[in-house]
């Protein structure tokens, strides 16, 4: 499986993500500079965390206008797995591939913390390997992770199973209905605030994140 990890200026979890894909899961993962991403033939694409374009203007918005986004959009339309982690989630929302908005945390502070998460959907491209809606642990680290949408849309997202993960217990950012991860209708595009690549090594605190990437492999097989 060939996976592209897109490197925007200011991405900072790009190499961490490639490391996990390549060295832990033995996948063919390529780090691709955003301007050089012209090839939609990859089997999956990941937008890593960080501060693309320094979060200038608004987190994720400048990257959403990168030429890379058009390729990503094509891959999304082809129902290939597309994952946005943290800043990647912000980019997917700004690009209109996922609904709603990600606002400043209600504490008005950056928060870095391991969180208990409730899996709500075990059918998406990045959760299908979990096989059940269990609780998982992964760390978050962001300033703008408070998911916001109108109640009507939130109701629909919940009903359609598009809410992929919620915080179990403490809501660290004031995010609506505890939402931590979200998918598109087809389930192949997922945005998540927690960092699966940081939860892929037991010495670093846990391995639940590996299942996120394993799901992608499983989804691509179907």
């Amino acid at each position, binding site marked *: 499986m060939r996976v592209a990890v897109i490197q925007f200026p200011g991405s900072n979890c790009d190499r*961490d993500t490639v490391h996990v894909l390549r060295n832990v899961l033995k996948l063919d993962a390529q780090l691709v500079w955003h301007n050089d991403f012209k090839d939609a033939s990859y089997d999956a694409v990941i937008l890593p965390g960080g501060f693309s374009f320094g979060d*200038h203007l608004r987190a994720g918005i400048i990257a959403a206008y990168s030429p890379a986004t058009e390729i990503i959009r094509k891959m999304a339309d082809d129902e290939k797995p597309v994952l946005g982690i943290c800043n990647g989630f912000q980019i997917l929302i700004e690009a209109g591939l996922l609904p709603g908005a990600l606002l400043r945390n209600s504490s008005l502070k950056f928060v870095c913390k391991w969180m208990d998460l409730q899996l709500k959907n075990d059918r998406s491209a990045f959760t299908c390997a979990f096989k059940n809606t269990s609780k998982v642990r992964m760390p978050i680290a962001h300033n703008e992770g408070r998911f916001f949408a109108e109640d009507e849309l939130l109701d629909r997202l919940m009903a359609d199973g598009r809410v992929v993960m919620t915080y179990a217990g403490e809501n660290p950012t004031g995010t609506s209905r505890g939402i931590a991860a979200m998918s598109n209708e087809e389930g192949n595009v997922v945005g998540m605030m927690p960092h699966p690549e940081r939860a892929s090594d037991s010495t670093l605190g846990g391995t639940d994140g590996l299942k996120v990437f394993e799901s992608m492999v499983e989804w691509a097989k179907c």
Partner: protein
Amino acid sequence: MLVGEVETTLTPDEMGYARRQLGREPNGLEWAMIDAEWSEHCSYKSSKLVLAQLPTTGKRVLVGPGYDSGVVDIGDGYVLTMHIESHNHPSAIDPYGGAATGIGGVVRDILCMGTTPIALLDALKFGDITRSEHSKWIMKNVVRGIADYGNCIGVPTVAGEIEFDECFERNCLVDVACLGVGRKEELLLAQATRPGDSVCLIGGSTGRDGIHGSTFASRTLGADSERERSAVQIPDPFTKKLIIEATLEASRSGFLRGCKDLGGGGLATGLSEIADKGGTGIEVYLEEIPVREPDMSPIEVMISESQERMLLVAKEGSEDALRVIMQKYGVACARIGEVTATGKISILRSGEAIADLPTPFLANAPVIHRKSRMPQVRKLEPKAKTPSDLEKALLDLLASPTIASKEWVFRQYDHEVGIRTVAKPGDADAAVMKLPNGKLAAIKVDGNSRFCDLDPYVGAASVLAECCRNIVAVGAEPVAFLDHCQFGDPNDEEIFWAFSMAVKGIADFGRALSLPCVGGKVSFYNQDEETGKAIRSSPVITVLGLLEKAEHITKIGFRKDGETIIVVGETKRELGGSEYHRMLRLIGNAPPALDFQLESRTQRVVLECIRRGLVTACHDCSKGGLGVALAEMAIDGCKGASIDLRNAPGDEMSDDELLFSESNSRFILTTNNPAQVLETFSSHRVPAAIAGTVGSASLRLTLRSSKLECKVDALRAAYANSLQEILEPWQK
């Protein structure tokens, strides 16, 4: 002093020396360049002679003090680099920008060695936030500045220390240390060795920010300091992130012969230092330097400390290839000069030299032989009554800002990015980072201004001792350290005496431990011009340790019911300088004594026990004494314990002394194998005794004349929430 139209901080003696050396009157630009390079900040002219006594060599030391970072060989072809910087003066004026640019500077120091920054630590000192709104404002903005900058550039902030004291009300201290990793064969040095090589300036353009930054940092803050906001640089972490990527790619490309961070003193300092280290000269083409504003004078261009700039010495002929790398990241790259064999720094405008100074002259300020005098007034030991409610005293101490959990701070720092952080903030006595060769690094920074104020020699040595204990407690062997000496005005003979004694203490104890100093920093003039009050002597020490195996990592929390608690080291009647005294608004007359040999032996034996797998949890016992250390172990492990402190090694003393004395050379550890642990300690003549057992929901302490029982939840409530309640009482 005004020379022509140029204002300098040079003394008449220094100016006389400059004229004699040159045999002529320097022009305005030359004076400005001399002034920047000879500032205390850049030249260490007051401290050089004192610092010379530090031990700086060891089997792992590849590069010691004098370069941008110290370099430690960790085997398997890898090196660690480390450095510390302070941004005290800028942070006192603009806490957000000052703290952020402080990180920028130290990250460049790691980068210019060709190594990747992998961890940041910060040692912060603020005024009393329980009484001062100003200090709250300073603290919140310093923390936010560090968070916004460090998080954005993707370098995790993994450890630190914070002290609160009235003496830092007007002069906060903001120190940032950075750890880097790289391959030995890719190491770069800040030097221009070969004539014909190109000198390239990459990154941001040169503007008017940070003009006179280092001379600003080389005098005291006064009423006019607010107007010197332009001496504080403007942070731009996004550009920094691009520069990190571009510089690392360039250094791995093999096109570079040298690399230098542009910090204090700007181009004037950077150019003269790389030429001096390489024994060469540099010809600079003024028009080639990209400037932010068109009408900047040559002086402004040469001494501006605009952030996010690096000097690269590129091999002749590789300029175009270098430009391609820079273009990918959108980083500007200008060839601003050429290395020459003239031994001079020449600034050319339209082909005509407008400054022409011999490199060694410019790069080496005349050393100042300062006078020092031991202060005559000694403080008296206060007679404090043992409080009747020791439980309240313990809870109050746990809630006091210096002791309380720093979670409010470290939650704002991304401490996970890079996926190397094994022991995270709050977990253990030091941060532990995974390394590419399979080994692990432990790193911690410590300070103790109260000990150093009472006795700079013993106090500074104790800071090094405490920092090493923190490294040992996680299961690592200390391998190198950085010192950072922060004092008031060195013209004050008593302050210079304190500085000299502190360095001597660090040097003597470093030698006793066979631990080399691989770098550091000196910051003088931390003094308020209006009140004339200096900060307490505040040396800060960063220690690097190595672990062979992840199994050796030991954390502080009590783990399992039934495990035996052992107190290592003697508790003495030593409340001087303690946090307990601070809470009672006392200080005392002397810090705890430090027996170099015993401290060194104790650390070795604790490490041996950890490596033999005998220890299940370990905590250094320092600030707040046995009471706070035991409470922290209970809070972190969510488990109580029954402990009889009458068994702890030590003299006859009152219960508050027993609980809160900060005697050196102590650890608390838990084990399943107490007999073997005790035997190991006794065979090395290190005092240790069984004090109790882990278990239950309360911490039960039997003291000499009283008992104390606290629910772990109550301990946590005092310890965990205190900073938030002080800083953001409206949250929750």
